[in-house]
């Protein structure tokens, strides 16, 4: 007999019939009816209408019926809070039941009902259950505290439940201990600094005792908790390791991996000459190997972790290469991971085996895998010098197969090999040249062109080869075009007499016929270099290139140390620290490996000591926290954490956009000025190759170039190479770096042209069309007549009509939320733009963002959902009644501690203090008083944020000095930076 009978429907209407049955007098009928209700609920049907009828069935001595009703309650209580109250009495009564199973069930269920009124009644029963004589009840109650904390954290703290929970760590029953640890760990995750799990040798001892006796899941919780402890000395460390080692033989792979984490971490403290250290190393290998015989999903997670472990301690698995050999029927995600680890383990001792395997993989079916295998051969060559020759000959064999993608991949890696071992393997160039015609992927073409240019003097017909590429110059991708340009210049410098025409041709192609700024700039640079100083040109273009290193693919040591502390977690799968992606874990302390006790250690691995010092600083390679969406889109206006040079205000991209409106006219105005103006980069006159972009993509191969990153950061911040799109599409970002001289002029323009009112930045691109299947969104924020608005232009750049627009915000610092639906009433046809103003309110859910004024937005249309993030000027949150009374101002200013004061400089602002005051008033920044001391005007100002936070300011303006000083005081000092940015934005426009 099956449950599918519960799905038969009749004509009368299901709900109606169920209602009748639920109210039946017969117990059995009632139960069947509840089952039917549950069955409907499980498949997602809405049976909430039956709430009162189901709750009526709750008072029963039939345990199954009770459980079923509880199931229903948990699902629907949230939508019917008032009705749910009806259940409270029964719950409270059940918490006193003589049967511990019923007591536990009642407290457990109450915790799952996420309704405030119910939670109030939960406290007393919960307190009793936490001290219940029956451990089953206690362990259930422990988890219930975590539930309650999730619903109402304050309540849990006020009621002292956290302390009771801490006491449970010393409980006599191991299962209770495990659950208490689990609950505390979960609570601690949302309270990073709360020191909830205060680990000391006594608690550690208790945990270790419980570890042996609790369930497999409990063992995971306890081990993960142990991993956070830092032992006092190597002896304690060793004794913990000894007691954890047996867990390596557990059947549950999660237990094994958590144990590995504890051991990997505590091992750091053991002196390397200790016998036990060697024993431990040997014990770690077999369980890791065994993980690889489990289900593929488990293998995947294990492999991601092994990848970290072999980077930290390659000695553990150095003899186990074979277990990473790829099997034919492994899922692709396992294959790729295994390949990665094979390369990491490759050494002189096993390279022959590895190469034979890799060659075998290169004939497999899956194209992605084959490509990676070919690349792996190249990486082996770079890693193991002795094998380079064999790798090159293997690659040549593969090229002979003439399989198109294999050949292309091989050429790309051979280029890297040339850079690692110059002047060694150039004899193979002839073979490579034979395959010139079959290359159709940009990367392979670029690599080949690089090779021809680099070794032009040894290739007789280099000029012919390059010329052949030149024919279709405009159809090539940018990567190939840039490479071709550089290669021909190299060729010219090496063989000037025969190739003058060729170089002329490529330079004119690059500078005159191309609309790609990168290409044009590079063309101009070469042109000028060649025409002014050929010797310098030779020095620059043919400069000695740094050798590429074998370690390029390794994880940066600080990050690696942190990740080792996170073995077995999501962080270890993504190879990113948890702060980079786990929501709600902001401010989580970076974990680090403990330092070693033995002094000999620091000599052997210098990175341990030095790295520990900087471990606090988040490693630079990781995207800043909160950039979840930014990451996806690469769209952020200006990196808020940029460290080089004075940080540009986040809104600079927007405000500068205003100049562009005036740009055309001003260009001509300024033409005659004596100082050479920094002309916007997209000028079309060939006479102005005055670009700061001195080869940030230097003429070396794109990978491994050490200058690349620096160039992007240090050069002109907005001219990021990331914006590969044609310049016309984003004027704002291209104009942003223009600075200095222009500002004066624009200030005038701004002063005259702008209406006095709240300043709002011009629209900037929030969501480029290429990231959103053709939907482009530009927009800005404004406060108009006391209403915050998000003003957007939606442009349809796709081929089909877009409809059904909707918008949603992620939780954000000030609770911004749409006040109504997005009003796009008509479908947007291709190439059509539509303007929308979305009124916002500030009553949405709040979560602190980084930076504070970051807003993550999701826009939906009939095609897909798209995400972007943008930063709003905080000035739009300044409310109209932000003018403080003088006396209050004085008192408040004194009252706020000096630690909360921050000072900023506003540079190049040429307004008088009155004009500034007027301007600021338009944005609800009110001047309360003005004082003049020694020719310096001091303006005292106040503003109030929508959430009631007051910000007090003192603005100092000295006649004749274009630099203002501003001091901000606020009880929430984290807003100061944003407020300052708004000042700057308002004053400069």
């Amino acid at each position, binding site marked *: 007999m099956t*449950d599918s009978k519960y799905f038969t429907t009749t004509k009368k209407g299901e709900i109606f019939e169920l209602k009748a049955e639920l109210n039946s007098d017969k117990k059995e009928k009632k139960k069947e009816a509840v089952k039917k209700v549950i069955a409907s609920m499980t498949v997602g049907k809405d049976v909430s209408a039956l709430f009162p009828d189901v709750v009526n069935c709750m008072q029963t001595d039939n345990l*199954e019926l009770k459980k*079923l009703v509880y199931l229903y309650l948990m699902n629907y209580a949230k939508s019917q809070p008032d009705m749910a109250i009806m259940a409270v009495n029964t719950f409270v009564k059940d918490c006193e039941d003589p049967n511990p199973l019923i007591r536990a069930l009642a407290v457990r269920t109450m915790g799952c009902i996420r309704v405030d009124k119910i939670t109030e009644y939960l406290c007393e029963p919960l307190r009793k259950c936490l001290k219940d004589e029956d451990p089953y009840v206690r362990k259930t109650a422990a988890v219930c505290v975590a539930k309650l904390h999730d619903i109402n954290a304050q309540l849990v703290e006020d009621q002292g439940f956290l302390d009771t929970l801490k006491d449970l760590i010393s409980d006599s029953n191991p299962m209770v201990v495990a659950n208490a640890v689990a609950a505390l760990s*979960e609570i601690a995750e949302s309270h990073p600094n709360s020191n909830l799990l205060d680990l000391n040798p006594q608690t550690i001892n208790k945990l270790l005792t419980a570890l042996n006796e609790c369930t497999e899941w409990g063992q995971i919780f306890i081990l993960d908790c142990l991993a956070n402890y830092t032992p006092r000395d190597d002896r304690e460390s060793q004794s913990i390791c000894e007691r954890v080692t047996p867990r390596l033989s*557990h059947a*549950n*792979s999660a237990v094994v991996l958590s144990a590995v984490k504890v051991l990997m971490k505590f091992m750091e403290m053991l002196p390397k000459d200790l016998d036990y250290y060697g024993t431990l190393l040997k014990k770690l290998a077999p369980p890791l190997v065994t993980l690889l015989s489990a289900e593929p*999903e488990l293998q995947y997670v294990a492999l991601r972790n092994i990848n970290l472990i072999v980077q930290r301690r390659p000695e553990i698995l150095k003899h186990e290469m074979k277990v990473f050999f790829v099997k034919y029927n492994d899922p692709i995600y396992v294959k790729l991971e295994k390949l990665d680890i094979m390369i990491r383990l490759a050494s002189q001792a096993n390279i022959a085996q590895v190469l034979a395997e890799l060659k075998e993989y290169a004939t497999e079916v899956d194209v992605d895998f084959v490509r990676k295998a070919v690349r792996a051969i190249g990486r082996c060559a770079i890693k193991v010098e002795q094998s380079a020759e064999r790798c090159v000959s293997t690659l040549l064999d593969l090229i002979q197969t003439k399989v198109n993608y294999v050949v292309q991949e091989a050429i790309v890696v051979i280029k890297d090999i040339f850079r690692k071992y110059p002047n060694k393997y150039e004899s193979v160039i002839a073979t490579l040249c034979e395959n010139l015609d079959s290359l159709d992927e940009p990367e392979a073409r670029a690599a080949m062109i690089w090779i021809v240019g680099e070794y032009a003097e040894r290739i007789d017909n280099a000029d012919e080869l390059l010329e052949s590429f030149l024919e279709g110059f405009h159809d090539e991708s940018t990567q190939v075009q840039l490479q071709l340009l550089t290669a021909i210049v190299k060729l010219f410098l090496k063989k000037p007499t025969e190739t003058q025409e060729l170089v002329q041709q490529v330079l004119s192609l690059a500078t005159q016929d191309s609309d790609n700024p990168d290409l044009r700039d590079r063309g101009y640079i070469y042109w000028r270099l060649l025409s002014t100083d050929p010797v310098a040109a030779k020095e620059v273009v043919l400069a000695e290139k740094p050798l590429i290193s074998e370690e390029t693919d390794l994880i940066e040591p600080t990050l690696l140390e942190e990740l080792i502390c996170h073995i077995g977690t*999501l962080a270890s799968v993504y190879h990113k620290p948890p702060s980079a992606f786990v929501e709600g874990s902001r401010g989580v302390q970076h974990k680090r490996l403990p330092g070693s006790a033995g002094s000999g250690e620091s000599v052997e691995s210098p990175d341990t000591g030095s790295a520990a010092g900087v471990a606090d600083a988040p490693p630079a390679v990781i995207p800043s926290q909160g950039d979840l969406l930014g990451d996806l889109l690469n769209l952020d206006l200006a990196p808020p954490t940029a460290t080089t040079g004075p940080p540009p205000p986040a809104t600079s991209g927007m405000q500068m956009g205003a100049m562009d409106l005036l740009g055309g006219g001003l260009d001509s105005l300024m033409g005659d000025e004596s100082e050479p103006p920094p002309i916007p980069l997209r000028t079309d006159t060939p006479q102005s190759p005055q670009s700061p972009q001195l080869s940030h993509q230097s003429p070396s191969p794109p990978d491994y170039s050490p200058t690349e990153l620096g160039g992007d950061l240090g050069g002109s911040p907005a001219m990021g190479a990331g914006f590969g799109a044609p310049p016309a599409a984003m004027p704002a970002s291209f104009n942003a770096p223009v600075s200095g001289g222009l500002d004066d002029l624009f200030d005038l323009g701004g002063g005259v042209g702008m209406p006095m009112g709240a300043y709002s930045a011009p629209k900037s691109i929030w969501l480029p069309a290429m990231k959103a299947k053709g939907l482009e969104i530009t927009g800005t924020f404004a406060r108009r007549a006391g209403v915050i608005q998000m003003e957007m232009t939606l442009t349809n750049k796709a081929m089909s009509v877009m409809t059904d627009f909707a918008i949603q915000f*992620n939780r954000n610092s000030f609770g911004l939320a749409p006040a109504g639906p997005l009003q796009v009433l008509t479908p947007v046809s291709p190439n059509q733009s539509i303007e929308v103003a979305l009124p916002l309110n500030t009553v949405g859910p709040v979560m602190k963002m980084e930076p504070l004024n970051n807003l993550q937005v999701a826009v939906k249309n009939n095609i897909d959902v798209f995400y972007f993030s943008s930063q709003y000027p905080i000035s739009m949150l300044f409310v109209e009644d932000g003018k403080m009374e003088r006396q209050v101002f004085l008192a408040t200013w004194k009252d706020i501690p000096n630690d909360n004061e921050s000072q900023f400089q506003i540079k190049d602002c040429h307004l008088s203090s009155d004009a500034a005051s007027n301007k600021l008033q338009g944005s609800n920044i009110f001047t309360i008083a003005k004082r003049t001391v020694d020719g310096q005007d001091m303006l005292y100002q106040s503003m109030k944020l929508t959430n009631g936070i007051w910000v007090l300011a003192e603005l100092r303006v000295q006649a004749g000095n274009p630099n203002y000083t501003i001091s901000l005081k606020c009880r929430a000092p984290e807003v100061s930076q944003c407020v300052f940015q708004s000042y700057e934005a308002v004053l400069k426009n």
Partner: protein
Amino acid sequence: MIHSLFLINHSGDIFLEKHWKSVISRSVCDYFFEAKEKAVDPENVAPVLQTPHHYLISVYRGKLFFLSVVQTEVPPLFVIEFLHRVADTFQDYFGECSEGVIKDNLVTVYELLEEMLDNGFPLATESNVLKEMIRPPNILRSVVNTLTGGSNVGDKLPTGQLSNVPWRRAGVKYTNNEAYFDVIEEIDAILDKSGTTVFAEIQGVVEACVRLTGMPDLTLSFMNPRLLDDVSFHPCVRFKRWESERVLSFIPPDGNFTLMTYHVSSQNLVAIPVYVKQNISFFESGSCGRLDITIGPKQNMGKTVEGLMVTIHMPKVVLSANLTATQGNYTYDLATKVVVWDIGKLNPQKLPNLRGSLSLQAGAPKPDENPSLNIDLKIQQLAISGLKVSRLDMYGEKYKPFKGVKYLTKAGKFQVRT
């Protein structure tokens, strides 16, 4: 911890959802569907996916995806292990783990899920404990329940939950006391073209079926325990005894369970029971090729190789195969391009051979990739590693149980390259 679970069938329909905390909208699965679409084969969907606000961790079992949603930093192995446990439990309760059977037992499934996880923390995952609380469905009981108004749900606190042997219930009684152990070994191997072993290892498992009255304490010892490179035990095994004496000492769960799994790694010499002589070649012109495979016995310790089967994954351009088998039958599946040759018992006097011609799509060039062979086989009464149980002793109870040990060797991922 684990927030929600979605069960998704082969064609991408969500047919069951369960939330242990607040409700998460189904739309979160869209990210998974996107990944599934990209992966083409369901086996290739990556098990851990990241979405803007959640993490999706999934396993693929019996043509079903078990997709869990987590919101905080949770050990993914913990989630994956748990999901497999859920699938195992369904298998155990309903005999199979399929969409049909789950839909037929929806309420039981829902009760089970509620019992297995509380607020995302595992609560009761031992099958013994679960079965005491929620009885598995069977026809007889449904009839009785309907007649008497009895219930499926136990109303006693499961004894195992709290004792320090949570895996065993108290008061077990049998009229026939018996303990059977199956030592099953799988050979994972890669052989290259010339028949040389590239890699070989043995994955072993000791499955037990113990039906003994009371609280028996068992000790199982091996003739040659040092053979094992790595072992993982059921929680019932006392690790200290193993460390010091290399014997398995334990109070067994009641019924079927996996006592231990072990691993004999490639460092030791692994015996390969058969050899394969094969030649699959394609001609440069004429769009055809030739296939010739012979299998013979190698190191099989004098036992018979049975259930022999060869699976050949052909390149995509192979249109048909015209082959002759001296023993057994072969099939060629056009859609998947797989030749399956079912041989059966291996006769050392008359070696099985499969040969013939392959024809390619007209005009297609010689394929780039090499076909690959997978071998299946079974050898009864042999553990290929040489592992032998020497004795089983029982303490704590007076009666004399019936004991038995069986051995079986199988091919695991046994692959021959061409």
